[in-house]
């Protein structure tokens, strides 16, 4: 069991800083600005560059994980395969085209569901990982019971390195356990939410606000019998982004879902003033055809606006908090590194716990033995 917890802690550490790791290793994933005050390119230019790089493709969605990362334009390739084009957000030039999973997604899949396949809304791996929230919380509880007057450990931390292996590992275990107590509690509780989330997905219980569908009359008919040409003066995606940004000051775009069919809206999401909430908390659904073509039920181009946590239901509130708290992404690189270090500490904690258990359960040395086992 200890090695499983250690594996999850280690992979979680890597998942917390996976963007930063690949940023260091691969220049193609970086959002390098040509100048200090260079503006972002229009999203329509990024989409056009991506589709030009993959002939016959169409945009599925676009995302930017952090400001330092290139924009990922995910395309439906020929035959339906998904292809990712990494686009510089300042110059709208394609830096790389990948038809495999990106490093961050592989690491997240490894930590989140052990790479196990998904079918009908569930993955056994997701359950296997999320359920470890329970032993984590039990470990916190038993640790506090067994470690009497644990608060004294904060005032006088102790790590004896010259009294043998048993004493050393015991002191290290208590020291790490004490200082990572809040982290274990936080990751355990958020893992429990992931367990609830897995059950909700598995049982097909809707808990997120559904995407609105445009009224049929919101989309114009044409006399030519072919799709209307996009507005040449301002392409629909840029107009949609501008409409949402005008209503949410401080919105940093992280995700744009292209309409999946004619009556579907643009889905725009990002981070906002409250960094504790994930990058889907702020945003809205926008009519790609503009308000001038909308029917009587439509109040304008922005169909649904989510201007922050106040617009979330209680369950959505938990859902949008869980990821940033679990992976430490709410405070930028500093908290991600802190979370990665704490994850490594929990890895050591699992290992030291196993060693302590072995010391306690090892057979007592016989009088003719060699003394203390270590």
């Amino acid at each position, binding site marked *: *069991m200890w*090695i*499983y917890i250690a*594996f999850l802690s280690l992979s979680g550490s890597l998942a917390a800083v996976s963007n930063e790791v690949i940023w260091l290793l691969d220049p193609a994933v970086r959002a390098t600005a040509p100048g200090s005050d260079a503006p972002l390119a229009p999203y329509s230019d990024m989409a056009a560059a991506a589709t030009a790089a993959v002939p016959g493709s*169409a945009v*599925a969605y676009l995302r930017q994980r952090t400001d330092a990362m290139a924009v990922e334009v995910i395309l*439906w*390739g*020929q*035959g*339906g*395969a*998904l*292809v990712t084009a990494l686009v510089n957000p300042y110059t709208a030039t394609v830096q790389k085209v990948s*038809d*495999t*999973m990106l490093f961050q997604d*592989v690491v997240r*899949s*490894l930590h989140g569901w*052990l*790479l*196990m*396949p998904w079918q*009908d809304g569930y993955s056994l*791996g997701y359950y*296997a990982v999320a359920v470890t929230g329970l032993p984590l919380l039990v470990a916190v509880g038993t640790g506090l019971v067994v470690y009497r007057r644990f608060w004294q450990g904060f005032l006088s931390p102790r790590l004896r390195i010259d009294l043998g292996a048993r004493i050393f590992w015991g002191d290290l275990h208590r020291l790490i356990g004490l200082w990572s107590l809040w982290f274990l509690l936080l990751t355990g509780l958020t893992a429990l939410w992931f367990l609830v989330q897995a059950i909700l997905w598995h*049982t*097909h*219980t*809707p808990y997120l606000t559904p995407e609105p*569908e445009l009224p*049929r009359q919101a*989309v114009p*008919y*044409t*006399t*030519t*019998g*072919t*799709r*209307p040409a996009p507005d040449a003066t301002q392409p629909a995606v840029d107009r949609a982004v501008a409409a949402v940004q005008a209503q949410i000051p401080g919105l940093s775009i992280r995700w744009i879902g292209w309409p*999946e*069919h*004619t*009556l*579907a809206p643009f889905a725009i999401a990002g981070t906002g003033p409250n960094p504790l909430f994930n990058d889907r908390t702020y945003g809205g659904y926008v009519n790609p055809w503009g308000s001038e073509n909308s029917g009587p039920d439509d109040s304008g181009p922005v169909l649904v606006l989510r201007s922050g946590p106040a617009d979330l239901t209680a369950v959505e509130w938990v859902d949008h908090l869980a990821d940033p708290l679990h992976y430490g992404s709410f405070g930028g690189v500093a908290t991600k590194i802190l979370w990665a270090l704490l994850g490594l500490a929990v890895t050591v904690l699992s290992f030291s716990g196993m060693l302590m258990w072995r010391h306690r359960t090892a057979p007592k040395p016989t009088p003719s033995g060699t003394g203390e086992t270590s």
Partner: protein
Amino acid sequence: MAPHSAPFRTAMAGVARLPKWLWRNRCHWTAIVLIVPALLLPYHLVPLGAVPDQPGVSGAVGPWTFTLWAVDTEPPHPGEHDIPEKEYAVRFGPGDAATIRQARLLVKATPPTDADAGAGAPLHGSPHAPEAHVPVPPDGRTLWLWVEGWSGVTATAAIPLTEGARPVLP
């Protein structure tokens, strides 16, 4: 089943033994959950392949041609609504996509009318082979493909379904 019948007691005893059995074999479980990712890793490092067309039915709906298939061979599964759902994919003929305003799939006993324009499930996603998650009532035997062109013209095609809601040639 009576609460104190022998099968009930046997079943409950089995359930009671389960945690102990899981705990006794914890080393094996740990080994499995660690070996499985190692075995699956290579599959996550190769190109994401396209979903190939499955054997399906071909036909015409108004001026358009189509091939429709069930995404998997499983029967309809529980969905977000009270009615079980099944996924279907459609590939339209060359050049058809540019003239199709929307296309929907619905399971219904009678042919859909214009009043059903918002019913069923819209085909969405990949423009090459859009899919729809279609509610399939237990007694549903006909899948309707409803297509509307950009000029407003509409057309329907009926596709019979088998017991497991798989499409068959009419």
